[in-house]
């Protein structure tokens, strides 16, 4: 296994990130690095600041303090689309798919391929289906581009949501609780999808409550508690018991 430090420059670098909502301090002085091809688990109890941190990185919130560097450059996101522009994609917990559209339509939603016919441009269904099929193949998910999303299993839906991130060649994919509320077999599929992303050199941040999943796919785990980063350890150097202790506060920091 490659250790993160040998991968050279971090794709994402947070320094002293803080976020206040009025008198509430949601994040305090968070430093963090994520390297290409690395899977980082972000853990913490409800209200620990995981979601706020993700929203700061994704451009939903502007940090009150600190600096975000992406690919070596300082970045300032005003809207989610700015973050997407540099190569940060979020796969949401509810997956943000339109059930009544096909898999291919969902993959390309908002960035359809078109062909020009004089002044009018029409959707290029064929090219989109072919590209979507390639992406599903890359993720080794047997998902047919023409099938409606409402007929799909949880694992296939994940594949569609992840294929969206591949389409834009994202360098960092943040996944919010991708394994909550799906079957055991589908969890396996999702974890293998994360491996596919890693193989392509994509950095993945996995926000999860499920200890087994984090220990199965992550290279490193970051634990948040009360808006602060309490631990940042290689999976090889820690144990589920230690992480649980860090999350609950039984152990202050590591």
């Amino acid at each position, binding site marked *: 296994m490659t250790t993160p430090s040998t991968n050279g420059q971090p794709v994402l670098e947070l320094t002293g990130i803080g976020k206040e909502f009025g008198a509430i301090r949601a994040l305090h002085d968070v430093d963090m690095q994520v390297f290409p091809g690395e899977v980082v688990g972000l853990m913490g109890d409800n209200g620990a600041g995981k979601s706020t941190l993700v929203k700061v990185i994704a451009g939903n919130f502007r940090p009150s303090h600190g600096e975000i560097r992406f690919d070596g450059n300082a970045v300032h996101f005003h809207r989610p689309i700015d973050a997407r522009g540099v190569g940060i994609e979020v796969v949401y917990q509810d997956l943000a798919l339109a059930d009544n559209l096909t898999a291919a339509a969902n993959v390309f939603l908002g*960035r359809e391929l078109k062909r020009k016919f004089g002044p009018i441009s029409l959707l290029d269904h064929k090219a989109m289906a072919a590209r979507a099929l390639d992406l599903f193949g890359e993720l080794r998910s*047997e998902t047919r581009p023409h099938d409606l999303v409402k007929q799909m299993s949880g694992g296939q839906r994940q594949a569609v949501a992840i294929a969206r991130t591949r389409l834009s060649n994202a360098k960092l994919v943040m996944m919010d609780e991708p394994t909550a509320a799906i079957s055991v077999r589908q969890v396996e599929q999702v974890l293998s999808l994360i491996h596919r992303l890693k193989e392509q050199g994509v950095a993945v941040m996995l926000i999860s409550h499920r200890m087994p999943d984090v220990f199965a796919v992550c290279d490193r785990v970051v634990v948040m508690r009360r808006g602060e980063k309490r631990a940042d350890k290689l999976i090889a150097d820690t144990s589920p018991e230690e992480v649980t202790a860090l999350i609950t506060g039984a152990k202050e920091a590591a």
Partner: protein
Amino acid sequence: MSVPMETPISFTNVGRSKWWQRGIFASQTGYVLAALLVLMLVMHFASPYFFTQGNMQNVAKNFSFIAIATLGITFVIITGGIDLSVGSMMCFSAMITSMVMVELSAPGSPFVHLAADGKAVVANVPGLILLVSVLAGLCAALIVGLVNGFCIAVLGLSPFVTTLGMLSIVRGLAYVVSNGRGSFPGGPDAEYFYALTSGDVLGIPAPFIYLVILAAVMAVVLHHTSFGRYVFALGGNEKAAELTGISVVRVKIEVYVICALAAGLQGIIISGWLGSAPANMATSYELNVIAAAVIGGANLAGGIGGPLGAIVGCVLLEVIRNGLVLAQVNAYWQQTLVGVIIILAVLVDRIRSRMT
């Protein structure tokens, strides 16, 4: 790595569904169309007059009178919205059109001059008055559509409440501008107006021709442009549409504008057939229009609908009305039957989706 790199996942138990289990054959539009064909066959045997040219022209004309507005409202229904103001809009648009036409045709307006005999009014440019007055009517609809869209998309009001209010506002405005009297298209261009709205080409009623053209355009827009994709995405999962970067506000405003313009055009066509635009014109037509869309398979929860369904719904309503007349059934039964069909159409769809 604790998870093994498995061989490609294969789902041998999942096959492609049969051709008759997908597309139009598995949609409400599909079997309402089938029911319509059966009904027409029954009508043919029940009444020798049904398939005569005259009756067919009559049916084609009558359903075209609500079908264009139904196409428009289908856009709104696909996004999961509703527009109750279409009936009022038809009246208002028609009224503005005929009032502008009369105004521009009055002696002294820059668009006309007096003929040599000093009495007859002659248009300076034939057809220009008609064009300007129709544009004025559509412009009125456009403004109302923009206000609807703004209230719903930007201010976040519920479509039902907004358009219910607009139903009353626009109807009220129609009474205000006409003082309750209604207006009549007149002047030198009135002849063109009647020819274009209630005339026919080779026996095909003009409104039917507009309908076919607009339905074809709508099919292309819905299924082959990104705007159409966004309309469906909005109805399927509005939050997802927003997260993928689609400008939800813009698409919403656009569908309400399209709906208003369709209703406006429909109103102008109806006034040509009526020969006037009375202030109570098209009252409660919004219910017929919504009923036709729903019977044809548009889902009020959003995400499903199309031009074929809209037309099939309108034809079915008209064939039933026509059939009851030919069968000499008391005309008052018509409304009751329409209600039954609305519920039946949705019920059959529900039963089918439970079975599969």
